[in-house]
């Protein structure tokens, strides 16, 4: 089910401003790929171009190609809305829909995305189990989602994302707003999820990247006021022990921030 993503010479623009320049990388299925680098160097922008969420901002566009299992997701005739059911996303701050219960949140993607006829209860249970949240909430599915703790809310968002059965899961710093215990819980979850999905995780936390990912990409700014670029993309073990590029090494060892 999980799919391979290939970015070919991808550049991301906000209007005339180029935020990310010429990224080429291959993201393997059923694995975790981490994107690390200092703030503001385009990691999140790049991530958002993989599910075409980037273009929700007026004037935002890309050049280059993004292939999902050899099919260009930016080809004419591709419906971004349909695409996003295949490529899901979890965000930095947990964002359950405030007016909905836990059950309705998880079911939201299905009910509102137009998949009819599926047995919602089965799907919700499956998703919550997959997100390691089922045991904690199974007795209060109809309670408001906001009553959950931060870590639980983020797992709820993960459940919501996997309920629509995507092939890829994009995660934009999913643990940065959480306490260390919840962070570890989510990292365990990611280790399990990678058996079924292609996972791309943007993180500020280098230790996290080295813990959870097989492959790591290091982004940085080409220079002051310049767009972000992909400096190095390699197996995680190599990036963190013998990086090829000096910039990567500086970042890893903390010489640059």
């Amino acid at each position, binding site marked *: 089910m999980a799919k391979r993503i290939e970015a070919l010479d991808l550049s991301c623009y906000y209007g005339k401003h180029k935020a990310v320049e010429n990224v080429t990388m291959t993201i393997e299925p059923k694995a975790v790929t981490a994107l690390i680098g200092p703030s503001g160097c385009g990691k999140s922008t790049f991530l958002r171009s993989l599910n075409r969420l980037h273009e*929700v901002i007026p004037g935002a566009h890309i050049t280059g190609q993004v292939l999902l299992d050899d099919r260009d997701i930016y080809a004419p005739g591709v419906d971004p809305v349909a695409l996003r*059911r295949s490529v899901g*996303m979890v965000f930095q701050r947990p*964002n359950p829909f405030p*007016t909905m219960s836990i059950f309705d949140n998880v079911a939201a*993607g299905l009910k509102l995305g137009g998949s009819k006829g599926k047995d919602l209860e089965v799907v919700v249970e499956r998703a919550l189990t997959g997100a390691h949240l089922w045991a904690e909430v199974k007795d209060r599915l109809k309670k408001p989602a906001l009553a959950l703790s931060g870590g639980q809310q983020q797992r709820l968002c993960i459940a919501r994302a996997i309920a629509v059965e995507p092939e890829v899961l994009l995660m934009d710093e999913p643990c940065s707003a959480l306490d260390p215990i919840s962070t570890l819980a989510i990292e365990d979850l990611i280790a399990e999820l990678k058996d079924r999905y292609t996972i791309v995780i943007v993180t500020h936390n280098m230790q996290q990247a080295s813990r959870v990912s097989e492959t790591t990409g290091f982004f940085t700014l080409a220079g002051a006021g310049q767009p972000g670029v992909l400096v190095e993309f390699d197996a995680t073990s190599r990036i963190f022990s013998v990086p090829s590029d000096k910039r990567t090494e500086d970042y890893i060892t903390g010489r640059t921030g």
Partner: protein
Amino acid sequence: MSATAMSGPGAASTSQVWKVTGRRAVVNRLMTMAMYLAFLIAVIPLALVIWYTVGKGMTRFGWSFLTHSMAGVGPDDITGGIYHAIIGTVEQLFIAAAISVPLGLLVAIYLNEYGAKGFSTVVRLLVDVMTGIPSIVAGLFVLAFWVLGLHEGYSGFAGSMALAILMLPVVTRSSEEMLRLVPDTLREAAYALGIPKWRVILSIIVPTARTGITTGIMLAVARVTGETAPLLLTAAGTLFVNKNVFHGQQEALPLYVFSSAASGTPADVNRAWAAAFTLILIVVLLYVIARLLTRRDATRR
């Protein structure tokens, strides 16, 4: 500057240590008194207005007052009531809301969720202009267009059209504000799930903002409940109960207060007070409910 400073060791035992004296202190005291005075000056007439209305209104207020109309009641008779006026006001407000709320909400959605650069600015500007339309001008328009121009004649419906014109910009503006308060991250989460935009708006964004939007609507209704001028020219008023809001002149509470007050006979004036009291009750009720609702707002932290 004349602040008296400490004068060396041992001065800590003095009670008068740091003190602002002279002109600055005097000015400060004067202005403090001025603020209290302003408050009093404001409170007194406003309290008088409320006090008087409640006091005089309560004498004539009562069940029979609420359930009888002015049919067959002369200006000096002490019977009669506002039943016809209440029916008229309720029906007119209902229709005014039915027109202005969906329309205002749709425009607010367009401005905040879709919107094209130049066009949106123009629409916002003109909606702002519309908030400033004097109520009598709104009445004049409906008079010129509907009552006379299309020869539809006076009716409660014409009145509700004028009221809708007054409500529309208020509903639009407050709804837009409320939609804007919904955090973008919710929109992103919804788009990322592959939910089409219109569904995101109707099933997620609007419900999240629904408390604020409802408050805005109730406040708009409270504001037009007491509008007399536009109704003078459109619904025109009558002594009789008219349950058909689409046909024929209809009475309304503020109209009733106006005509009774203008008539001047003691009986009419007494009824005017009672009707004014009823009006204030309704407006205050709407206002209180709106305020209570804001406590349950989903967009407040």
